[in-house]
């Protein structure tokens, strides 16, 4: 499995895995959108690029996810495919998606923001995990 959500008292945790931190970030974004819609039904028709930076890799994850959430609101898009290029404390992320279809995409719940709670990015035996709790 490339990503998953995990239980949390009032909200939901999201977790992405990968062979690199960048890949884990891509999958964490997929986990984020899986909270909101059925992402396998979201076609990769439109492309958006975001540039974010942060003092460390964990805060960078939050920045990346929040940049996507803002884009979703502003451009009325939901995303399903992601590509991340990491350069030290900064990243260039590309997201593909389409305008929200309120029937086909089976919308669930809006995410208000990615938080610092249970925020962690780590590597174990060559496998990276990127996770945090998101406020819904």
């Amino acid at each position, binding site marked *: 499995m490339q990503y998953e959500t995990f239980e949390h008292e*009032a909200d939901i945790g999201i977790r992405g895995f990968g062979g690199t931190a960048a890949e884990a970030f891509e999958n964490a974004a997929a986990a984020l959108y899986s909270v909101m819609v059925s992402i396998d039904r979201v076609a990769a028709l439109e492309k958006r690029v975001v540039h974010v930076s942060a003092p460390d890799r964990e*805060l960078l994850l939050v920045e990346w996810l929040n940049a996507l959430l803002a884009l979703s609101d502003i451009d009325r898009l939901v995303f399903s495919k992601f590509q991340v290029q990491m350069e030290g404390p900064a990243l260039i992320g590309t997201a593909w998606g389409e305008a929200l279809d309120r029937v086909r995409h089976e919308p669930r719940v809006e995410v208000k923001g*990615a938080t*610092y709670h249970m925020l962690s990015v780590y590597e174990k035996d060559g496998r990276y995990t990127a996770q945090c709790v998101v406020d819904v």
Partner: protein
Amino acid sequence: MDPNSLRKINDYLWEIPRQGTMKVAGRIFASEKLVREMDEKVREQVINVAMLPGIQIASIAMPDAHWGYGFPIGGVAAFDPEEGGIISMGGVGFDISCGVRTLKTGMTKEEVTPRLKTLVDQLFSRVPAGVGSEGLIKLSPGQIDEMLIGGAEWAVKKGYGVKDDLEYIEEHGRVDGAEPEQVSETAKKRQYREMGTLGSGNHYLEVQVVAEVYDEQAAQAMGLRRDDIVISVHCGSRGLGHQIGTDALKNLAFAVQKYGITIKDRELASAPIESPEGKRYFGAMSAGINCALANRQIITHLVREIFTEVYPEGHIKMLYDISHNTCKVETHEINGRKKRLYVHRKGATRAFGPGQIDLPQEYRHVGQPVLIGGTMGTSSYILVGTEEGMKVAFGSACHGAGRAMSRTAAKKRWHGREVVKELEEHGIVIRGHSYSGIAEEAPESYKDVTEVVEAAHHANLARKVARVKPIACVKG
């Protein structure tokens, strides 16, 4: 939380004595049962807040307190700028000024029931709700700044509602101190198309019947009688508020380092009230409050339009509008001295006692209405603020039930369709934009709101006036 680990002051007040670097004690207003059910994390968070500079009297937790980001949900704390007090994003949260507004309809259950399904269908199709919903009004950049300064007053000027509505909103529908220039462009852009939208998650629009009246005098002041129909709206500041929160989390993290504030949790990101960073956050957050007030005002207008179409004999009048996630400048008496304080209420509501100048004339002798939301299947309550609450909790009370079960667990346990069917069998009509969202909001996934209300009542934070029961609910 083990009650034996706390100092019991009385049946509804428990203290975490001041220790270590705590500047004040922690105080939890709850019954023994609620204390037992509380997450151990609440203690940790109450203690963390008690360590913040300039905190007054106590770090307070309401009966519905549960784990939150930085502050507990149900956390209240007041800070004095003259004592180096801070303002914290963690004391407000992401959904700035999320709140409840209750409207009177001038009709009874008997009169409303025959056309209830039509009403609910109209509310469901015409009040924008759910993931990605768009409002009927699109704002330009200039209009957004006006809205952020004007709040509900702006909305009324634009024709959404009547002037009389403003009387029944905290601060008359508009907080001072909003600075649109402190709100990021991203935050504003997120709001262009989201005015007058309900959102999703625990936000709702509910048709309720007054099922029980406990305090005749207060109910009379509010114009409430048994079997009356009221409509309650629960929503917040939408994308704009969330972005202000997100921006502040980052900006205040730098301020913490700059001013050498010791915080135990990154989400307590704070700045001294009088610092440029603190002032910037206060200006942006206040703009967020006005956005939420304008948003609920536009929804009120839609509800009024729809209701009077379905029931031409009805008349929608405001009962009151309260905000949950705020930091407000208020004057409170501390050890016999009046002080201007920055009162943070995170998942807690203002509950001013009688005599306060901000209250509408007809409520001034009884106190501020306090609207406590339940779930789709259970009761909500209307209370009033008390003099005692002013003294012990800066005029604050609890805001709702709080979750008992995670969203993931609720979804595993129930199916949205079954929840809808079961509620319909109990005479509650449900319309939702997402079955999975409904499953996550199943009534049993929340704590018992009655227990929380009883605790607030017995702790004398607010006094019970009436219980209302849902007969229809629209979910985002």
